[in-house]
């Protein structure tokens, strides 16, 4: 690098650094935060700019991923107007919304149970949440096949006790994909809610009961609004991950989700502009829905914190 450009670079750094230093109390703090900021810029922001760029390129000639240096909105037109991407997005959102609703409701129940439990029972319940978290996602999801398929353990059980005559077709299918996806996100939902409940004062519930609230009522009136920051985190995480789900619908479902389609388009079909445009549309749609969820839920309780 020439001395000139060196000077230019340091000039640029000066220009950004100085106002930052001016607006914060300690230079040392900035230096400590710098590595992470630089990392995020290099590994998160920059690649996304490239993603955006590719999404507005022309499709490649036969056998190439995209035509470098060209500009075109074809990919977006394709994504927004053709049927398949719309169906794929709709399917992903279905899984996302249903799995999230189940995960959050069940997560709240379970987090509450953990919160109320004591001693060994509490450890056991916590353990049951943490262990699946540590088990390879691919495998634990696949384990639902022998459990839920028409000849699987559940159906055998239900048939042998006479509850069923024809087996339930859970796997493969939408229900299976949702069960699998709930299984993947439930531990996170439980822990997000539990971590808020754990800081909550049990006396609030006692106060409600003392003032005449029955048990379900006291939970609804006091626990839910108090746990709302955790519920919001659980909802956002469950939703983001379920909409982008790949393994569960692949292994347990029978329809194509957004993630499966993008994978095929990138690796197999070499349609990068379409794949990246679909990704961009998907992120935008997701962020809009997440924003709406947060806005609606925050009206029922505490503010969202990053924790």
């Amino acid at each position: 690098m020439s001395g000139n450009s060196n000077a230019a670079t340091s000039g640029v750094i000066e220009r950004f650094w100085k106002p930052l230093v001016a607006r914060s109390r300690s230079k040392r703090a900035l230096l400590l935060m710098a590595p992470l900021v630089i990392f995020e810029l290099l590994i998160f922001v920059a690649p996304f700019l490239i993603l955006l760029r590719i999404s507005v390129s022309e499709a490649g000639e036969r056998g190439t991923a995209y035509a470098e240096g060209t500009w075109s909105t074809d990919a977006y037109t394709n994504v927004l107007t053709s049927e398949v991407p719309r169906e794929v997005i709709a399917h992903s959102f279905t899984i996302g919304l249903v799995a999230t609703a189940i995960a959050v409701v069940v997560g709240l129940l379970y987090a509450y149970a953990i919160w109320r439990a004591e001693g060994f029972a509490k450890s056991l319940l916590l353990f049951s949440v943490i262990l699946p978290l540590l088990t390879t996602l691919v495998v634990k999801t696949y384990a639902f096949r022998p459990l839920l398929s028409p000849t699987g353990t559940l159906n055998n059980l239900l048939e042998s006790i006479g509850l069923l005559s024809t087996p339930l077709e859970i796997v493969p299918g939408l229900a299976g994909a949702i069960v699998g996806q709930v299984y993947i996100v439930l531990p996170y939902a439980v822990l997000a809610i539990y971590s808020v409940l754990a800081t909550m004062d049990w006396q609030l519930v006692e106060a409600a009961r003392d003032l005449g609230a029955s048990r379900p009522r006291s939970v609804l009136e006091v626990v839910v609004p108090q746990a709302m920051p955790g519920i919001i985190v659980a909802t956002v995480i469950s939703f983001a991950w379920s909409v982008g789900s790949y393994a569960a619908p692949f292994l347990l479902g029978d329809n194509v989700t957004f993630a499966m389609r993008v994978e095929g388009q990138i690796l197999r079909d070499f349609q990068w502009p379409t794949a990246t445009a679909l990704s961009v549309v998907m992120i935008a749609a997701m962020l809009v829905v997440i924003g709406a969820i947060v806005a609606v839920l925050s009206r029922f309780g505490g503010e969202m914190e990053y924790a």
Partner: protein
Amino acid sequence: TRIFGDESAASGETLTVCVWSGNYAERFKESVVPMYEDEHDVTLQVETGWNNILANIRQSQGNPPYDVTVTDGNFYYRGRQGGLFESIRTENVPHLEEAIDYYSEFRPTEYGMPVDGAPCNIIYREDLDFEPSEWADLSSSAVENSRGIGIDTGFWWFPVHAAAIGMDDQEAAGELYDESLHDEVFDEIRNWNVQSWASSGQDIWQAFESGTIDVAQWYFEQTAYDIGDYDGLTHTLPEKTTGYLNHWCVTSGTDKRDRSEEFIDFLMRSDVQTEWSKSSPALFCNADMEYANDLGEQLPTSAEEAQNIAFPDWEQLMDYYDEFESEYASIRNA
């Protein structure tokens, strides 16, 4: 192993070969690898891949992760278009001469050599009161009224070809190469009672086991190998069918081009394929090879028989790729 970048092919003693992952690879390691290593003072490093094979070569930008790779018709075509393969010098693959003409002619051999493959077959339940024998039977009312059909979704063009073959409007799968008939082909598929969209052989077996389907489209080689593990299933190879043929290619940028060509030539030898056939019920290209067991009765042993397999012609098909892909996806997601 380097931390930065991937492992560069080691110094001359090792040849890295990429094959289809799964039990294809197991069988390859079992039979071909020892044969080759016994004959040559070379270690074969077998890598496995799936639909990421081309992506891996492409990303390597001239420093390919494999010296030799297997490709099916689609990858062979795309790889050629993307300049991912070295051309193969005819003088280094003398055994191409011995290949059944049909295999060496319906696709160009400038960048890859035909070695092995498999036709698509029909798997069905023995206790079904109907025995499907050709692809048109998938549209029959008996199959319609059965529990359902399982077909491949990853390599969707094979079921699409099967549908076209079953239609009989044109020779073989000609319907696909005539734009005016495309809708009819997909209507045909739409009418199938598809209950399982399989992305692996495992999915198919699972679907039979769980009683989701009674009939399936799959590949002869995998079917013949696995079907013994499942009770009450049988399979049949329709007389007119489709299938895949593997072309073996030398990756562009390899520093072992000679060795690679020599290896591919090795694969094309009749004695090698005869031996290979003992562990893999695949279709082989050498006219002089001998199939193990009674496989020769089912798999083509001559050009006439081979012509009954309508392999996808990607030179033409590529124009419709996006259209077909969306159609197929929308049937699946319906």
